[in-house]
Structure formats: C-alpha cells, structure tokens
C-alpha cells in the first residue's frame, strides 16, 4: 500500500525560527517539526498524524504565508 501524503500547512504568517526534524524522521502524532515566529511568539508546527517526515519545504529564516505547505508527512 502506498503511503498517504499529508501536507503540513502554516496556520499563521511568520518566519521559520527553527527546523526541529529532518526528512526521514519518524514522527509520532504531536511531534514538533519546526517552530515559526509570528507576532513575537514561537508557534510550534506539529505532526497532526504519525508518519515519516517526507519533505521539509522551508528553511530557517524563511518568511512563510498563512496556509503555506511547510512539510509533507507520509502516513
């Protein structure tokens, strides 16, 4: 069975402060993938489902828009 690819989108506009997980990492639901900075706060981006982190589509320092896909998880 092929993996289902799930997009992880940014819920806010902001800047990528830190990448916390590398592609290939095995994630449990709720694991942190990266941290954004927005409105002077650190906003964690979490895995909504368990799976393998297939792609990270942003780098530290990148500005991101609301709804932008930041990573993909193969679940």
């Amino acid at each position, binding site marked *: 069975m092929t993996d289902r690819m799930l997009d992880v989108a940014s*819920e806010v506009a902001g800047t990528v402060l830190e990448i916390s997980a590398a592609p290939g990492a095995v994630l449990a639901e709720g694991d942190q993938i990266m941290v954004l900075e*927005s*409105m*002077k*706060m650190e*906003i*964690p981006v979490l895995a909504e489902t368990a799976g393998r982190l297939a792609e990270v589509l942003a780098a530290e320092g990148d500005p991101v828009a609301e709804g932008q896909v930041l990573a993909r998880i193969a679940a």
Partner: protein
Amino acid sequence: MSAPDLKPAPAARPAGFGTERPSMRELLAALEADRAAMRDEARPAAVARQRDRAEHTARERIAMLVDPGSFREFGELAREAGEPAGEKPGDGVVAGAAKVEGRPVNVVAQDFTVMGGSSGEIGSRKMQQALRRSVREGAPLALLLDGGGHRIQIGQNSRRYAPSTGLFQDLARLSGWAPMCAAMLGAGFAAPTNFSGLADLVTMVRGQSFMGLAGPALVKAGTGEDIDAQTLGGAEAQVDRNGIADLGCADEAEAIGALRRFLGYLPTNAGQPAPVREAPPEDPARDEALLDLVPSNTRRAYDMRKVVNLIADPDSVFELKPTYARNVLTSFARIRGRPVGIVANQPMSMGGMLTGPACDKAARFVSMCDAFGLPLVYLIDVPGFSIGSAAEKGQLGRRSAKLIQELGHATVPRVSVVLRKGYGLGYVAMAGGRSFEADAAYAWPTAEICAMSIEGAVQVVNARKLAAAEDPDAMRAGLIAAMRAEVTPFGGAEGFGLDDIIDPRKTRACIAETLERAPARRDIGMPPKFRAITPI
C-alpha cells in the same frame, strides 16, 4: 447477495368483520405479527445492505445509545396508507422514549434501509412527536441521523409541501430548554443537516458520515461543481475545517457514546440542576504538576490542554470541537464532581490569539453552558484578537462581539484565571478582571495584563524615537523591559482589579471553593428588554 426479505403472510391480520369476531388472543397475535415484520430480524436483505455501507441498523444504534430495556417505541406500526407491514417499516423513522443513565430522553433514528432514510409524511410526524414530547417533558432529544432529504416522490407537490411542518419551530423552541444532540452516522446531506443545525452537539464518523445542505448530485446539477461526498461534507470538512459538527469519531460506537457522555454533564432541562457526581479524592501531585507547565517567557508555547486536565477532576474533561479553531479550547469537565464549562486559550495554536472561528466556537459554548446552568471557568493566556486584512474580511469586529454578547447575558457563576497574557479586548472577552463581574478574578504570578502586546505598544508609541536612535534594538529592549515591569499582576492586585495572585497549585481549590459558594444563577440587572440582538 442475500435473499430478498420475506413478506409477512397476508393471512397474519384477522379478517375482523366475519360472523365470528376474532378473539383478543387472535388480535394480539396479529398485532405481534405486524410488529415482528418491522424488526431487523424480518428484513435480512435490508440489514445486509445497511451493513455494506455502515456498521449498524437504526434499531441497533438506539440500543447503543440508551439504557438497556428502557426504549419505548412510538409509531412502530405507523406507515403510509396501503403499505403492507414490513415493506417500509416505520416510514423510515424509529422513534421513542428512553433513558440515558437513568434520565429521560427522546430518541429518533433514521432508517436508511427505507427509501434511503428520506423524510416521508409519517416519518416526519414521528420525528415531530419526539420533538414535541421533548419540549413538553423538558427531556433531551437525541437524533441518530442517516438519511436523505425530503422524499422527492412526495415533496415536489405544492398541495403537500405548502403547509410545511412545525418541526423547525419546535426545534427552535427546544434549543436551550433541553439538550439536543445528533450523531451523523452516514448520509447526512440536506434534512439531517437541517435537523442538526440547532443541535448542541453533532458527532460524525470519519470516512463514513457526511453532511451539508446539499449532496454532490444536487451540487453538480445546481452549480456544476464536481465534488465527491467526503470532500464536500466528510468529517475533515465539516468537523475539522468548517466546525458545523463537533467531533469526528472513529466509529459508530464512539459517535453514539459521545452523545451519552455529553448528556452526562447536562441537566435534563434548563430548569433542573446539572448532575453532580461524587468528588474524587484530591491528588496533591496533580496540583504540583501545574507549577512547571507554563513558561514565564511569553514567547514560548505550551499545551493548555495539560492545564485544563490538571485543574479538572481526573478523566473528567470532554473537549468539544477539539479539531476546529484549535487556538481556543472549549471543554465540559467536572471540578469536585460538579460539571463546569472551561474556556481556555491554547498557546500551541496561533499563540492562542482569538480569531473569528475561535470566537464562534467559544461564544456558542458559553451560550450552551449558560443555557444549562454550567458555571464558566476561564483560563486566560491571550495575546489578543487576530489583526490584519484577513481578520477584517472575516468580520472579526462583529464576531468578537459575540463573546461579549454571550458573556454579557450569562447568569451562571464564572471564575477567571490569568495564567500569562491578558491583553486587550481578548482579556475582557475572556471575563478577565471585573469585566463581567466574575465571582472571583485570579492571576498567576506569571501574568501580564495590559491593553495590547508590549512589543507592539513600544513600537507604536516610540516609532520616531526608535527610527532616530543610534542603536534602535538596544533602545527597544530597554523600553520593552520598562513597560514589562508595569504589567505584572502585582499592580492588578494592588488596584483590586484582581481578587488575588495565586500559587498555580491552589488554582483548583480556589475555583472549586468559589463555585461551591456562588448561587446557581445571578440577577444580572437586565433592563426590561425582550431579547438580545446577535451581532452576527
């Protein structure tokens, strides 16, 4: 393929008007034969078809919801003129009175195996009967929905459709009087969605249920939009993104079990007290855990869910809409056995700021708690409302007013605790300080209470000075530090805007003791108006 269902023998019903009248026993046997023809056992083919598309039949679903042996069906024999027994049992609706945890409810289950669960005349009248009984008895209504919309065969006829039905007026009358809950267990486009529009809780089964005003076929015919049922109205859409249903469940047992659990926090009707359970033993280790959950650094996120769980009795938290507007948490819970509604900002999502969906979610929750007499507990860590063009386009100016509107009309006890940020109108809309005459207004030592974000205020006030500064960053840091010293909870407590600054470990006890003393309802000094006007 299973064999077609056996039709009941035509001789089952006694002739009635012969020279010899049938005896009572013969009449009862005929009655029992009629009843038997309605049951699942007499309809193996229909049951098999249902199992191909869902887990349980209408009658099985009712059995999953209600206390064993408590179901008293009404309209079991009702059917359209000329229909043989068992052909379209109950006209597609199974309805009756029952009990959940020993308390009365009325139940309606749509039967998809009969004309796709579409609403026929008799079936609709049975549903209305359940609804009217709920209004009259002051008893909750539970809907187990799985059906189509209006039965097209009879609806496209003005003689039949023009009189309409009082069903929707009754739904509006029941709203806020007795709890109303609905499980969407399969087909839910059109009528089931209309029925559940006023329900206080709606659950769905992920991957199986869908709901919405119109299904894919009608959407395609009307607008040309090509979309499948799950994408249009599955739980991912209607629970997670649109928030018109509350819970996406793994299976029917979970979706129906959630209705039972929901009713367990609520009174039978608005005139009765909510059911209180025995208080569990206090566990100091849980209080102790509160000490290290919230970082004092306001940039840092943490999971407010953990705070809610520790303040409530163990395993008593029932979160509503957990996957929608995650930036605010709305949960039923118990504190020392007594049901409460907890509204809490969630810094893990969007920093906990209040957005339009969060306002809708929290305002509706507050109105439900107020309707059914559940005290409100506010856990505040709010950076404010969202700002910018998207927020304005989403009418946040009015949607935020819903929080004010609901809280301003609430008569239940309320307690507020500022854990960290209490900024701007968000602080007010979360019942901070004296804004809505909280029975007690507390803050943790980590609280910051002020009109807007500190960084934002420093920038706006000192824009020119900062632009001209030799080292603007150093200057900004100094200004921020100076302002931060002005917003601690100590000033708030000194000015008596707060009742106290409390040790986080005492939070549960402070809330419990306040609520134990507070009267169930308060006179809020409302002027002699007839009703409030909703801001949106």
